[in-house]
């Protein structure tokens, strides 16, 4: 019995520590990412892509609701499915409140990732996740706006893989860049950041 109490106490302390670190990173002195590499606001971007259903999409598709955007490619065995699984978990955690959050996976490998490929790939993750692809110059345009980099790299077997920025980008409903969630950042840090992007919408609606 004592042992159970001890475990419970340790658990409570761990939760406290996690909450504190979360606060530190989100709102506290640890907030804000490297200046100069911040994404432009969506309102300052110009790009035209195609979603998984073949519809034309652009910055205007995202502005009006908070957005969560991630770059990757479907031939990616580790980082991309991990991130899409993480995103699915964050959306599940927030629940119905997150229903309006635009959640988009954008390929940096348009040569291989067709509309059909993107449609099938995103169907295995949270239903809210969209998959966008487009012409190489349009992918380059959106990556530039987000300050995202990507690069084709030869793999051992004569094929290629893509190095790419792996963070998740958050924007509020006005299209203002809020923050990024680092690759594989734990849920207890990621969820408050998403809530922050969503909160800005509420504040705006009330004012």
């Amino acid at each position: 019995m004592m042992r159970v109490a001890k475990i419970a106490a340790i658990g409570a302390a761990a939760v406290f520590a996690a909450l504190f670190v979360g606060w530190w990173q989100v709102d506290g002195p640890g907030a804000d990412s490297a200046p100069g590499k911040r994404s432009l606001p969506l309102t300052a971007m110009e790009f035209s892509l195609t979603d998984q259903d073949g519809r034309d999409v652009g910055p205007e598709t995202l502005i009006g609701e908070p957005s969560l955007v991630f770059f990757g490619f479907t031939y990616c065995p580790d980082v991309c499915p991990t991130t899409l699984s993480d995103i699915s978990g964050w959306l599940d955690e927030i629940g119905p409140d997150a229903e309006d959050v635009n959640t988009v996976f954008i390929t940096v490998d348009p040569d291989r990732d067709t509309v059909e490929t993107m449609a099938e790939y995103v169907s295995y993750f949270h239903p809210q996740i969209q998959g966008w692809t487009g012409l190489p110059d349009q992918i380059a345009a959106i990556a530039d706006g987000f300050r995202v980099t990507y690069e084709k790299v030869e793999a051992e077997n004569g094929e290629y893989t893509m190095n790419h920025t792996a963070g998740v980008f958050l924007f509020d409903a006005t299209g203002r860049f809020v923050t990024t969630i680092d690759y594989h950042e734990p849920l207890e840090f990621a969820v408050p950041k998403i809530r922050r992007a969503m909160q800005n919408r509420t504040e705006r609606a009330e004012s």
Partner: protein
Amino acid sequence: MFKTFAKAIQSLSVAFLMGLPMASSAQQLSENASIVVESPWARASLGMSRPGGAYLTVRNEGSDQISLIGLRAEISGMASIHETRTNSDGVSSMAPADDIVIPPGGMFALEPGGYHAMLMQLQSPLVEGETFPLTLLFSDGTELEITVPVLGIGARGPEG
């Protein structure tokens, strides 16, 4: 015999305490029981043109240091261990890993965001619900064949 039994009891009680399904903590041991592989899993693949990824934990219960030096799998024309790295600009890349040294009593996890078993040139798709054999190659000549269950594309860990 007794040692094996004790170990089984131990892993059973650990799994029970943590509330994990038994399947995920199933251990696969080398012949001399000094190398233990736990919680292997792979993500289902989208057809055969994309590389597959698998994960597992290796424990060295022997008294000598060992290195995990490679992989072999019938399902893959080219299986190797890859390391994912994310640089200070947040750019991720993956590359073949160096030999993985595991000291006596130590463990090493291939897990999302770190190391993965990279299964290139898939000979057949990785289908959710199925399993496939994967052989781990060690520096002391040990070749340990394990059975890897295939989970969904959206799986987050050995529990799905």
